[in-house]
């Protein structure tokens, strides 16, 4: 078993994982001392550097087909902490690093800190928080210890909440407060779980836990509380109420990072918890229940999105729906009769990644529309496609990915999930997937047809939109389309480090 050997020692190149975590931390500390005027320059250097590290880690794992690990301070678990990177973590890490870098390019227009002679508030906060989010995500992807993951989760929360209310309007403050309370509740529930698990197994190391874990009251209570807490942070229906106002009210670059990146952190932990820390513990009934929540999110999120009058709110509700797809992988992967495990996990991760790219592109496009028109009322978008063709093209491509049309990443993800519904004979999830796609296509079509229609009054653009912002949005949208092609290439990297027999206890 690769996971068991990974416990023994630091692997060659394991030091890369430390680098991926330290880089953003150095950036944060430097920004504090040098001041906000340098924050953007520091980020402009460190975020691409982080992407390079991510790519190197990706290549190492893809070529060697083994996971990397690093034992911090040479103290092996259970006493110490191990960082581990398997296929799931590197795939997510590279995707998030790319998205964060492009968001950084896009944000330059809004948070240029170099023009002012003194430190100003919004740029300082934005760039530091962006670096913090990239560090926290890396920590979540590599953390091999449930308590370290708790600290990383808090890091993510504290970085994300201020982004919501960066412009200081009352309604965004309200959204931020609501988000903070949900997030705090989520992390404290997660913390209860870690306490109980430590009490039962004397370790919080994920690999050690997976070897010791068994079905008993304390473990089930812990797993339930942790899962509920993480659901609240991921905004899974019906704990999604905080998300739309928070994501729709933030500045466009912040919305993009919140919707594309931040919610994936807590989702990734749910996956770690059920598929790595407690493999095979998820009962069929519980997994069906999670699936029902996911399905409700898809249907409700999409229907509410259809009824929105504002573009940013529509996109935010569509995030609620797309999060639902992520959780369909639980009933599909936990069916003990059909071990479709690997493909479903690949599908779920692809959905997370393609949603990240597509949604970031769409929020950026919406932000550009808002900047150009001074509003984002869908009914008055007429003529915008002619004024901002590249922006609306990016929006449309992102929409195609969300709908799941070939050859987009969204198509591949949903295809893998659909295949699994057939293989495991759970056709009811297939209905939800297809219905969700239809509903999505309805609102994407509404927006696009409005945008391409004639303007009700002569269109006056309030501000010129910088070309590079449009290019950043289009770049992300194209990525989301091209993601479908990974089926030909490195998709098998996701399987690296997976235990060969996920349902070990069945044997």
């Amino acid at each position, binding site marked *: 078993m690769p996971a068991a050997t990974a416990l023994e020692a630091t692997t060659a190149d394991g030091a890369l994982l430390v680098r991926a975590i330290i880089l953003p931390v150095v950036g944060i500390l430097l920004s504090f001392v040098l001041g906000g005027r340098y924050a953007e320059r520091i980020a402009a250097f460190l975020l691409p550097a982080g992407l390079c590290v991510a790519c190197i880690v990706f290549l190492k794992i893809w070529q060697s087909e083994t996971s990397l690990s690093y034992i911090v301070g040479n103290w092996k678990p259970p006493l110490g902490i191990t960082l581990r990177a398997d296929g799931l973590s590197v795939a997510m890490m590279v995707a998030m690093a790319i998205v964060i870098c492009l968001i950084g390019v896009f944000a330059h227009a809004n948070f240029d800190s170099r023009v002012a002679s003194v430190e100003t508030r919004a740029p300082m906060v934005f760039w530091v928080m962006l670096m913090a989010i990239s560090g926290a995500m890396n920590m979540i992807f590599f953390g091999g210890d449930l308590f370290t993951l708790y600290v990383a989760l808090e890091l993510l*929360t504290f970085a994300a909440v201020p982004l919501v209310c960066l412009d200081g309007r009352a309604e965004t403050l309200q959204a931020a407060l609501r988000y*903070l309370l949900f997030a705090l509740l989520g992390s404290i529930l997660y913390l209860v779980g870690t*306490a109980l698990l*430590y009490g039962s197994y*004397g370790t919080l190391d994920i690999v050690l836990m997976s070897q010791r874990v068994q079905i008993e009251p304390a473990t089930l209570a812990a797993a339930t509380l942790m899962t509920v807490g993480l659901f609240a942070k991921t905004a899974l229906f019906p704990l999604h109420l905080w998300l739309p106002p928070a994501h729709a009210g933030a500045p466009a670059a912040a919305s993009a990072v919140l919707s594309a990146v931040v919610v994936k952190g807590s989702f990734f932990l749910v996956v770690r918890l059920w598929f790595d820390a407690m493999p095979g513990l998820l009962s069929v009934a519980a997994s069906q229940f999670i699936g029902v929540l996911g399905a409700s999110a898809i249907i409700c999120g999409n229907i509410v999105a259809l009824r929105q009058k504002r573009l940013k709110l529509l996109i935010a509700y569509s995030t609620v729906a797309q999060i639902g797809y992520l959780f369909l992988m639980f009933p599909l992967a936990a069916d003990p009769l059909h071990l479709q495990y690997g493909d479903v996990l690949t599908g779920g991760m692809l959905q997370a990644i393609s949603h990240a790219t597509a949604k970031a592109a769409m929020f950026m496009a919406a932000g550009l529309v808002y900047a150009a028109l001074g509003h984002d009322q869908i009914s008055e978008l007429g003529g915008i496609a002619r004024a901002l063709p590249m922006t609306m093209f990016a929006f449309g491509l992102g929409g195609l990915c969300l709908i799941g049309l070939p050859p987009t990443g969204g198509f591949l993800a949903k295809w893998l999930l659909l295949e699994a519904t057939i293989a495991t004979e759970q056709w009811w999830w297939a209905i939800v997937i297809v219905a969700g796609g239809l509903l999505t296509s309805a609102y994407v079509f509404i927006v696009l047809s409005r945008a391409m229609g004639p303007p009700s009054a002569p269109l006056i653009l309030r501000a010129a939109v910088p070309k590079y912002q449009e290019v950043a949005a289009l770049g992300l949208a194209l990525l989301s389309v091209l993601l479908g092609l990974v089926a030909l290439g490195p998709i098998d990297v996701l399987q690296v480090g997976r235990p060969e027999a996920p349902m070990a206890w069945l044997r």
Partner: protein
Amino acid sequence: MNAATLFGLCGAALVGIGLYGLITNPEPLRKILAFNLLGSGVFLLFGIIARRAAAAGLGGDPVPQAMVITAIVVAFAATAMAIALVQRLGDETGQASISSDSSETGEEKS
């Protein structure tokens, strides 16, 4: 029933009480207070887990104790942030509440 179990039940009850306050109290400030109560209940759980694992001449397992110290500081930081948010919201709107429907306020804006 030994002392660890007794304090463990106390922690469990505090988690329940704090959760109740967090859900039912409409005032943000009281919600924050309830969150702290809930947190301290959780910390007590760590405490009894440490206590009942006493060995090697120590009164308790130091690992969960260290985790609690980290968690207490994080909870304080969270409280500070939440309170600053409530106060700014109070300054902006003249009232401190998170109960109004924000999707509507969102529409009013533009």
